[in-house]
């Protein structure tokens, strides 16, 4: 297929995904993945090197955005409880899925690690959407869940960057460049925004893109993945973004319009429907492992910190989407997992965005428990928290 035709089909798919997303009220990312599956399996569209590169950059931009969306004040307020819930929410599913893939499914050690990372995730965006929808974002319960999600995300990003590192001299350069950017960029940005900001030629966005492209390049030289430094860099500049909402919005506009669609459509294109239909039992088992290990890790501590809403907290911590997809696609592009393994992991990740969310909202919605006696037993009230409230 000529490249111009591939580009045209991608353009049409990206446009269609947006329209369908608005009409159905479902996130554009999920629609893009579905259209990608359609394009790859029905239209026979195959990823090209330029799609691969844009998808890779899209994944780094998504990671940077995830870091920039962390509310650092909230994280400090809720640190002890969220470190426990978020830490266990990462650790047990990571170890459980890794062991399951290695010993039960017989995957290669590195492929099993990818399974562990991909299924350890919690989707901050899915959690945030549910909390906004139920009006819980400013309650102690909502704050606890979001802060815990930040910790899980950090664990996932760290695992993906650290687990596949090869001991080469480039590691030193990767660490040095990453550390320099993380230290310098937040200090430079306020001056940079004042001097060059608010122009249609977007120096702020180009500066951030230059930093992320540099991280990608040095990460590649070091045989690593720039996901951890990109996440931490986002975290480091989150307060600058919070103070410059217009710039943050423009960054999102550019990312959602031009970069992230390539990532999600490429992820969908790489899914083989025949691989899924031939391995439905494995798919069910992977989802069960993710859910079961999330429950094992989160539920006991959630009982302590979220009381009557422990099940709701656990279910929301069991969701996954973006980081799971990023980890799986990294595994596929690095040749660590094959297309069947990728298809199974991404489908499990998508199912984990949908299944726990539906169960949480249908059966454990705290608004419905508000009038019930269970609420009285909870250490967390549902009234909006005061400033600095823990």
């Amino acid at each position: 297929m000529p490249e111009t035709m591939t580009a045209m089909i991608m353009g049409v798919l990206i446009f269609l995904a947006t329209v369908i997303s608005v009409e159905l009220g479902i996130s554009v990312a999920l629609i893009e993945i579905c259209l990608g599956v359609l394009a790859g399996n029905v239209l026979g569209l195959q990823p090209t090197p330029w799609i691969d590169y844009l998808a890779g950059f899209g994944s780094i931009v998504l990671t940077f955005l995830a870091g920039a969306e962390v509310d650092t004040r909230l994280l400090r307020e809720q640190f002890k409880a969220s470190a426990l819930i978020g830490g266990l929410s990462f650790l047990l599913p990571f170890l459980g899925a890794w062991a399951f893939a290695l010993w039960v499914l017989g995957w290669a050690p590195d492929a099993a690690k990818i399974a562990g990372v991909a299924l350890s995730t919690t989707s901050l965006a899915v959690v945030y959407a549910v909390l906004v929808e139920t009006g819980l974002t400013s309650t102690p319960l909502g704050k606890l869940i979001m802060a815990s999600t930040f910790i899980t995300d950090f664990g996932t990003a760290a695992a993906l960057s650290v687990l596949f590192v090869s001991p080469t001299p480039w590691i030193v350069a990767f660490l040095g460049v990453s550390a320099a950017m993380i230290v310098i960029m937040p200090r430079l940005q306020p001056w940079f925004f004042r001097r060059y900001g608010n122009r249609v030629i977007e120096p702020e966005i180009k500066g951030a893109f230059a930093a992320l492209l540099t991280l990608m390049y040095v990460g590649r030289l070091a045989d690593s993945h720039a996901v951890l430094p990109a996440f931490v860099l986002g975290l480091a500049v989150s307060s600058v973004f919070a103070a410059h909402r217009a710039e943050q919005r423009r960054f999102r506009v550019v990312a959602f319009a031009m970069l992230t669609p390539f990532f999600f459509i490429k992820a969908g294109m790489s899914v083989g429907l025949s691989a899924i239909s031939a391995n439905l039992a494995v798919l069910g088992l992977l989802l069960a492992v993710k859910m079961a290990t999330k429950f094992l890790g989160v539920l006991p501590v959630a009982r302590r910190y979220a009381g009557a809403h422990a099940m709701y907290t656990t279910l929301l911590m069991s969701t996954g989407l973006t980081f799971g997809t990023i980890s799986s696609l990294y595994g596929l592009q690095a040749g660590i997992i094959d297309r069947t393994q990728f298809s199974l992991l991404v489908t499990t990740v998508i199912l984990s965005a949908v299944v726990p969310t539906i169960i949480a909202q249908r059966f454990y919605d705290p608004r419905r428990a508000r009038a019930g006696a269970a609420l009285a037993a909870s250490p967390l009230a549902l009234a909006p928290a005061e400033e600095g409230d823990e």
Partner: protein
Amino acid sequence: MEIAHILVALDGSELGRRAMEVGIDVALRYRARATILTAIQHPAYAATVGEVEEADAEQRAFAERVQRDAIEAARMRGLDVAAAIVSGHPAEAIVDYARQHAVDLIVMGHRGLSNLRRFLIGSVTDRVVDHAPCMVLVVTERHLR
């Protein structure tokens, strides 16, 4: 029959505006208090917080604009109305609000949906009619002609 509290569901459409006019008529006739309600819905299973935040901000701004116009229209006819913006699926939000605030009558518009849209997302009005704890007055496209 006593109608003390009327809820008008507004979505920014022409039918919603017409429903508002009908709601004002009924409220004045029955000397009832009226509340206008607009539901805002966030993208399900979002991949980024930004997608949710931006959708929330855009829809909230739209809802506030729609409600401002409706409040002004009611005031010009001598009726003070309360207003609320709630998150969630519109049908669920309308029914929940009606239950929690002792609403006696819901007034809302109903546009004809294609078979495909009805299959995919269903009709908000159908769901409200099915689950509402009170009477529902539906303004259809025929009333616009």
